[in-house]
């Protein structure tokens, strides 16, 4: 007999099906270490079984590794091979075991240790879609159709082990037909916890904003109302969406007004890849994402020659976030509507997405005209994930990378395997990805809770080699979000049976996550590790790449608290997981008004121009802000309410305002995003490199890059009458060359030949590509993010990696 544990995510029904096929006898059960299988049978059958476990894993399975242990056969004859040998120990001759006794699934023991089997939510599979469209099927057009291979998971799970009573499906008693499928080992719905049908499962209802039901078919009527320009609130998998006709400028503008969302682009749902191709350029990686089981929003380049959606859907951008239906209800609605739909998070302004029915009408009532709702509760809020596809580095040999978020899958098992060289990078990791664990490439000796940053907050728990990074939670200053954060920590600790012994946090004393960490550590008597923000960014990139360093860490972002009490954000660090040294950074400038300078990039322009000693007479940015220009310059010069920062994000803001891109922002990073959009893609020139102050004691003091020189060059070029788009491009190119030159120099000095790129500024694709290509050309290994975001959403993973490395 062999017993085995399979590390990763394999459903017991799948194991059952394989074992039956190979005529094995035994049983399968979930255990804390993974799936535990006891099987006996012929050696050949056992071999075939182990191979099939890896090769035929269904969509929701992730096979990390298979460990096989041999046991003496029951009749007393010893099997050969050492006990505890890793996989492949099934070659020994085995007595022909009877198969008549069969194979069985042992029920998970609710009182026992917690199982690790919590999968992410999964898009409707092809088999279910076929049934959805089949008039003869008993689930024809049933909006909640699902099976073992698809459907809701994480968002409906209240507790582990993952069994129906522990989900929000507990209130729906299976009808005899569904129960028969559930208990039939040969059925696709064998042990599918959310199984249901029109007889016994959840129902869709369409209500007006006063909560009065509308008769007629909810889907058909919703499509009709959308065509007429209505705003529809639609309850989905991880929360409520707001939908409008994406071709109607009036409808999209109405939604913007009611949501208080001035410019930030809306995501759009299209019925399939073909429809996506009518709007955007869809490469092979994007196609795989749009047809795969995770179904994130994919950021894609709009086709030249006018967008196929209304202007106010994504004003002034070259890209559009597209997704395809991932629930049966989406499929039905998109088919009935037949056109692109804006599908944006159901919230007001920066509030978290609404997911509870009892608050939906109160909060979304002022926004939505109608509500398409259902009666399956959502237990955990999960936003749509966002992914972007990056082109291969110039001159890169074509190679394949594992898709984001998955420890190790065989790409051959996927439809449309990744295009050579193209890389996908998570921008927001949530629905479809969380709570799947990320393998870090090293063991964490003690379980860690890392509390993340403040905006785009996530937290992270570690166990063994795995990091459980939470779904995107949001801006913690918002009370509803902070509640989601604290409740989420408790939920994850329970689901994954992690009792943290160490708490990691940012050094920023005012982050609510820092305060939570310190309070919690005191209450529970836990160890505390404060991790500098940019060290966490670099460690996050290392963990993302399973690389332990040392690297030259390029941490460029909005800002984070430095070890000297100033605000950092344009940093070149020498870092590994345990420590870092600040080798170089942008020379600090004042942020007049602190957070006000972030909301108003023109203030950064004033501060930079003053620091650069540039004559501002006649500059448009000064004219536009004449009323407060002198006061803001005085604040910057005299350090009144003006903290110093070496942030690269603020340098982008300053240049954006000088180039008349915008003076104030209404979402995070807006000015920098629009500056990147403005930059002429054909422009190849750049300015002379800015000065770099090399302190006399390079081992002690970091080098300082004079961002003011860049600003002065931009103004000079602008005054020479150069087109703004070309100036923007030259600014990007010069900054990239500067970073590359500094790195080359530091690589020479330190002998470190690898660079890790992290921080929100590397959301700028142009900068990322130019810096990455330049470093590679200089012979450095370049690490970038794929499985967690380059922005602060990745901070918790980095904190966890640093805390784990400190013994």
């Amino acid at each position, binding site marked *: 007999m062999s017993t085995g544990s399979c590390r990763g995510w394999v459903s017991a029904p799948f194991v059952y099906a394989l074992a039956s096929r190979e005529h094995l006898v035994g049983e399968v059960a979930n255990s804390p270490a993974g799936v535990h299988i006891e099987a006996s049978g012929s050696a050949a059958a056992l071999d075939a079984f182990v191979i099939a476990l890896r090769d035929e894993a269904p969509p929701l399975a992730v096979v990390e590794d298979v460990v096989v242990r041999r046991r003496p056969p029951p009749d007393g004859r010893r099997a050969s091979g050492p006990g505890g040998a890793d996989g492949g120990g099934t070659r020994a001759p085995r007595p022909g075991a009877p198969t008549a006794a069969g194979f069985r699934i042992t029920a998970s023991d609710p009182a026992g240790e917690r199982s690790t089997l919590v999968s992410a939510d999964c898009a409707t599979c092809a088999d279910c879609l076929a049934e959805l469209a089949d008039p003869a099927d008993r689930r024809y057009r049933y909006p909640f159709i699902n099976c073992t291979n698809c459907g809701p998971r994480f968002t409906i799970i209240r507790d582990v082990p993952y069994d129906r009573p522990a989900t929000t499906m507990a209130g729906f008693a299976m009808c005899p037909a569904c129960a028969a499928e559930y208990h039939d080992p040969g059925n696709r719905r064998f042990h599918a916890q959310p199984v249901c049908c029109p007889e016994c499962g959840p129902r869709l209802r369409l209500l007006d904003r006063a909560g009065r039901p509308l008769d007629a078919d909810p889907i058909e009527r919703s499509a009709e109302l959308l065509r007429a320009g209505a705003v529809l609130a639609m309850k989905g998998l991880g929360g409520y969406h707001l939908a409008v006709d994406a071709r109607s400028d009036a409808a999209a503008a109405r939604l913007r007004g009611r949501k*208080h969302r001035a410019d930030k682009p809306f995501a759009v749902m299209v019925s399939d890849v073909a429809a996506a191709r009518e709007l955007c350029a869809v490469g092979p990686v994007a196609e795989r994402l749009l047809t795969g089981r995770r179904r994130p929003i994919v950021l894609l380049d709009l086709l030249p020659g006018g967008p196929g959606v209304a202007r106010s859907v994504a004003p002034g951008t070259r890209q559009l976030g597209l997704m395809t239906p991932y629930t049966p209800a989406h499929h039905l609605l998109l088919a009935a509507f037949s056109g692109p739909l804006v599908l944006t998070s159901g919230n007001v302004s920066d509030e978290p997405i609404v997911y509870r029915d009892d608050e939906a009408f109160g909060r979304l009532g002022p926004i939505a005209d109608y509500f398409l709702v259902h009666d399956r509760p959502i237990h955990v809020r999960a936003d749509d994930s966002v992914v972007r596809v990056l082109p291969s580095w110039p001159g890169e040999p074509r190679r394949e990378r594992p898709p984001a978020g998955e420890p190790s899958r065989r790409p051959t098992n996927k439809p449309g395997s990744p295009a050579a060289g193209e890389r996908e990078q998570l921008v927001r990791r949530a629905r479809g990805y969380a709570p799947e664990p990320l393998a870090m490439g090293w063991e964490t000796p003690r379980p860690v809770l890392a509390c993340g940053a403040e905006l785009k907050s996530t937290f992270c728990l570690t166990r063994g080699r795995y990091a459980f990074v939470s779904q995107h939670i949001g801006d913690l200053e918002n009370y509803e979000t*902070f509640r989601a954060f604290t409740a989420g920590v408790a939920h994850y600790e329970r689901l994954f049976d992690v009792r943290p012994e160490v708490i990691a946090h940012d050094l920023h004393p005012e982050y609510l996550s820092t305060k939570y960490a310190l309070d919690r550590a005191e209450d529970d008597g836990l160890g505390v590790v404060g991790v500098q923000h940019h060290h966490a960014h670099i460690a996050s990139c290392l963990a993302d790449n399973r690389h332990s360093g040392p690297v030259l860490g390029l941490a460029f972002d909005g800002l984070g608290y430095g070890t000297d009490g100033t605000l950092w954000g344009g940093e070149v660090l020498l870092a590994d997981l345990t420590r870092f040294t600040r080798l170089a950074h942008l020379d600090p400038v004042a942020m007049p008004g602190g957070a*006000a300078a972030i909301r108003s990039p023109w203030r950064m322009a004033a501060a930079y121009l003053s620091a650069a000693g540039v004559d501002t007479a006649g500059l448009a940015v000064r004219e536009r802000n004449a009323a407060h220009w002198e006061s803001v310059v*005085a*604040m910057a010069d005299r350090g009144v309410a003006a903290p110093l920062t070496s942030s690269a994000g603020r340098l982008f803001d300053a240049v954006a305002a000088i180039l008349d891109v915008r003076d104030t922002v209404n979402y995070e990073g807006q000015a920098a995003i629009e500056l990147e959009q403005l930059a002429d893609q054909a422009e190849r020139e750049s300015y002379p490199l800015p000065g770099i102050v090399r302190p006399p004691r390079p081992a002690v003091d970091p080098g300082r890059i004079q961002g003011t020189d860049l600003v002065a060059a931009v103004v000079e070029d602008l005054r020479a009458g150069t087109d703004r788009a070309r100036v923007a491009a030259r600014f990007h190119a010069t900054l990239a060359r500067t970073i590359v030159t500094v790195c080359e120099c530091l690589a020479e000095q330190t002998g470190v030949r690898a660079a890790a790129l992290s921080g929100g500024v590397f959301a700028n694709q142009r900068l990322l590509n130019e810096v990455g290509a330049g470093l590679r050309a200089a012979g450095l290994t370049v690490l970038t993010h794929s499985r967690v975001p380059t922005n602060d959403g990745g901070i918790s993973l980095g904190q966890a990696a640093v805390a784990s490395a400190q013994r």
Partner: protein
Amino acid sequence: MAHGAGGKATAALVDAVFLEAFRNPALEALDDGAHVDAGGARLVLTTDSYVVTPLFFPGGCIGDLAVNGTVNDLAVCGAKPLYLTCGFVLEEGFAVADLRRVVAAMAEAARTAGVTLVTGDTKVVPRGRADGCYVNTTGLGLFHPGGSTLDDESPMEGVVAADDPVGPWPVGYTPPGHRPTEPDRLDRLGMAHARPGDVVLVSGPIGDHGITIMLARGELDLEADLRSDTAPLSGLVERLLTATSGPEHGGGVRAMRDATRGGVATVLNELAMAAGVGVVIDEDAVPVREAVRGAAELLGIDPLYVACEGRLVAVVAPEAADAALAALLADPLGAGATVIGRVVDDPPGLVLLNTAFGGTRIVDMLVGDPLPRIC
């Protein structure tokens, strides 16, 4: 510097250094004033040192600030301020004319507040060892009853009737509706006594003092029609306590605090932590003058965290809310009084702000100086 900003760092410093060394029950209450017993007299004692740049500013100077600040600390404890002492630390070379102006302002403020300056001390330090003029004042107040009655059905824990329930009275002061058998009012005024359902008021527009000071430094090229709100609140407090003392006003006033360093936000956080309650305020209801709002916006400062020197935050039982508001409004120093929020049971220890957009933001106690948190 964060240690002086009035936030969590200040609290930590006080805890670590002073409380450790001087530990005793009167100090541990960590109220603005200490309640002490002296031969049967219920006294309240407080001390404060004043450091401000510039020394003279629109609406006042360090002199009246030093009198009003200490008077207010006594008043919000429910005491009638009677006597002050003052100590000066002067930098060598500080102009005598300026000193005269400061002293004259102190005398005038003391007259207004009805307190007597009884003793003082002056030290001169060499040039460069101080910044012009520092002032310390110590105030002695007498507790007077009045205000509301204790809820008989639900006596609060820890409240013990005083042996001599009447106590000494301020000369010539007989509050209406006083019942000598009541426990001391003093025992019932304090941050820890706030209960869910209570109403939170401020006595006027906030932030005038702090913004005036910042602008008066002359570092910004900005003109604003603003003056410090520095004023003695003893009269206003007396009016408030008297108006809410009847049995129909439930527990009457539960707690008062002058919103100085750290502003209203810090007072509310102290309240939430001391009483283990939540506080919810409405952004639209918080009174802020246009000129203050404009300057605060320019400086990137949230007026909720800006110091006032003549404004108090009062927490009153719901039954007393109308009477309290009317009493404040009837006094010139309470002209802009308004209800800004209420006490709730959940979430304990947090202050929440309902924003104009319908969101809910956490208004946290600052650890030190405000620093941007946006990445």
